[in-house]
């Protein structure tokens, strides 16, 4: 039973830790499916987290924080769009620039406004997206096996976490069952086909990066107002890049994206769980080794265990009308 409880705990934190990855990964999916590579997920998430922390602290409203985060992240997404769609700039350079801007400006603004070394002051519970207890969670707690799974694992997460997982089937539906999705997939493969079919490539791609902005905004809000109680500098901690790796594992598909994010979340949870405790046969493993595991796994998996991941064919290339 001890092992079972420990497992539930690890899985519970797996879910918690994979939510920001999942949101960022789905965000990237919209943009990259439309042919716009976005290495700036990290920066948008960070800027979103700062906006969420700052506005939630000042207004005391979690929803205000969420709205601010989405606004800021969408703004940055539009900057990326302006550079790479309208001006046909290099998408990687634009994305990296956004990461730098976000990393620097959040600290400077944080220091200027709150003078706490780049962090925002602690946001109290009313300004956060705290855990939600699902109906009957308490009454079924004592049912063997299923009880703890429901009340510990499934119940008790932030509203944004449920939103993130709901976004997976929703994204699948949008991609494969709607006109917008058909066009989005087409424009990432062959924008000329979309153009000659009488659809605006520019407007379509802008809509895709706006979707990316919204989701990274939610991801940032989750970091600042659900996982933590405010913004801390560099709190995205490379999650935007891990989300990109997950997107490649998942071959740009929503459900595999969720599984990949859960895997990374699990590794993260294990790192926290076993960090510092001696392992049988191996002894004490330095926590850095465990923390490095997701990155090691990324390299190993990408080196050939997942088969060929073919990105959208027009990805990274600005569309120029020929002739």
């Amino acid at each position, binding site marked *: 039973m001890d092992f079972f409880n420990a497992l539930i705990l690890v899985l519970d934190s797996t879910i918690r830790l994979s939510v920001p990855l999942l949101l960022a990964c789905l965000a990237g999916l919209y943009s990259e499916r439309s042919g716009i590579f976005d290495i700036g997920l990290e920066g948008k998430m960070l800027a979103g987290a700062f906006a969420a922390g700052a506005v939630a602290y000042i207004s005391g409203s979690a929803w205000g924080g969420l709205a601010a985060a989405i606004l800021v992240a969408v703004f940055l997404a539009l900057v990326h769009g302006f550079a790479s769609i309208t001006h046909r700039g290099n998408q990687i350079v634009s994305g990296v620039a956004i990461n730098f801007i976000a990393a620097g400006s959040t600290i400077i603004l944080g220091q200027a406004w709150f003078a706490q070394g780049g962090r925002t002051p602690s946001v109290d519970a009313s300004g956060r997206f705290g855990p939600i207890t699902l109906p009957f969670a308490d009454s079924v707690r004592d049912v063997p096996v299923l009880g703890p799974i429901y009340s510990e694992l499934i119940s008790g997460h932030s509203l944004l976490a449920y939103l993130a997982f709901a976004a997976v089937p929703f994204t699948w539906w949008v991609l494969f069952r709607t006109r*917008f999705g058909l066009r989005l997939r087409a424009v990432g493969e062959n924008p000329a086909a979309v153009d000659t079919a009488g659809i605006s490539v520019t407007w379509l791609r802008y809509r895709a990066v706006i979707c990316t902005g919204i989701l990274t905004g939610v991801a940032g809000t989750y970091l600042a107002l659900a996982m933590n109680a405010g913004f801390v500098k560099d709190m995205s901690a490379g999650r935007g890049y891990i989300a990109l790796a997950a997107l490649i594992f998942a071959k740009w598909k929503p459900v595999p994206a969720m599984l990949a994010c859960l895997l990374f979340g699990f590794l993260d949870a294990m790192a926290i769980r076993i960090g510092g405790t001696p392992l049988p046969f191996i002894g004490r493993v330095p926590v850095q080794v465990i923390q490095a595991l997701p990155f090691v796994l990324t390299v190993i998996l990408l080196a050939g265990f997942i088969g060929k991941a073919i990105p959208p064919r027009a990805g990274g290339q600005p569309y120029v009308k020929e002739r």
Partner: protein
Amino acid sequence: MAEAAIELVGINKSFGAVHANRDIHLSIPKGTIHGIIGENGAGKSTLMSILYGFYEADSGDINVNGRKVAIRTPNDAISFGIGMVHQHFMLVENFTVLENIILGAEGEALLNRSIAKARSELHRLERDYGLEVDPDAIIEELPVGLQQRVEILKALYRGADILILDEPTGVLTPAEADHLFRILRQLKDEGKTVVLITHKLREIMAVTDNVSVMRQGQMVATRKTSETTVEELAELMVGRRVLLRVEKGEAKPGEVKLSVRDLMVKDSRGVTMVEGVSFDVRAGEIVGIAGVAGNGQSELLETVSGIRKAVSGTVMLDGKPIDVSGVTDPGDLRDRGLAHVPEDRHHVGLVLPFEESENAILGYHDEPQFLRGPFLDRGKVVAAASDQIAKYDIRPPNPHLKTANFSGGNQQKIVLAREMEQDPGVLIVGQPTRGVDVGAIEFIHKRLIAMRDMGKAVLLVSVELDEIRSLSDRILVMFDGRIVGERGPDATEGELGLLMAGVDRKEAAE
């Protein structure tokens, strides 16, 4: 004359200093197949792009079915019943046929109903026009002929009454092209108007009712196809008399220069591309290799010219073996008198951002004649380039111009001049006239014949059957990596076409 489906009145379009379309007047009667012919850069594609809403004309009017219209986007064109089949297919390769057909014409925000509607509509089009294609097939798994059919279906699904086809047969086998023409005739019988843009005279004669000729941005003539000849059209296109059939004397084959035995080549995926290929090329003859693109000719060329490894087999140059098991240094082969005009001049034959003079000596740049000590002697390089420019009539005659700024035909002349001027014993030529204008084709053909008459061994690979037939002294047909037959230069097109399609004459008779 019937009412005009399309009427262009005084269309003008300039790109910077280039006047691409100059005061174009054109009337295309309803229910006819109308050919538009002209050299590359004559302005055919620009004109059609204006009609399809890619560009807006600087001045002039477009009337569709007698009504003056403004076409600013492809959407406008579609709404006026104009459909276009592009030279490079506008298909999403990993989508199904159905998905490609509804893209942009979905009708509503959710796909379920539009897919069901498209499916039944597709059945109707299949029934009415004999345009069969599996609606659930993935585009990239279909042969090009079927992909083109999907493009036609796309236009018809959008209710096109006027169908524009831009160079539709470039990627087709002769049989596929004939099938396409049958489809076009059937579309005409159903009352559709077809506009066929091409630079191939044979197609114009085969299928059109009327033909308009463009030259240097102007519409120079319109003829009834039945009242004109290939010679007249060629002259109108080029602006002077053109010899379509090269005149050449009897070949005087000498000793064997290049000898290939049991060659087997695999591509990077490990698929066998060339198998059991053996042939000789003698001094003073042109051996042509015919075949539909992708049947191993490219791999054969690359192996013989030292770019690609062979799995087994031997290649002898002047009686001495070439090491084909490893990648031979093509530079060594050049030294031994083997010159190569690659199929893909943009990626293999030329460095497009370089100056013309640099490309004129590329691969021969370490020859003493171009060097002063360890350095290139720019003066000698430019002199050699100017010499080639004069001899091969490369235009514009500027050795300092960036190579990318030359037209396709002149780029090809740069490559040919470079390789021929080194006086090789063996010349390997891939697709010498791909994307090259009629006038330049005539010139290139003459030079190849001249090389033969100088006693060089020439190996020619081309997907243009006419070219193979008019130049070659012997014709080898490749199908599926093998040489499936050898014919003389008098072989009929039908005979070669069957071989190219992998059909044995015996089988065909059954």
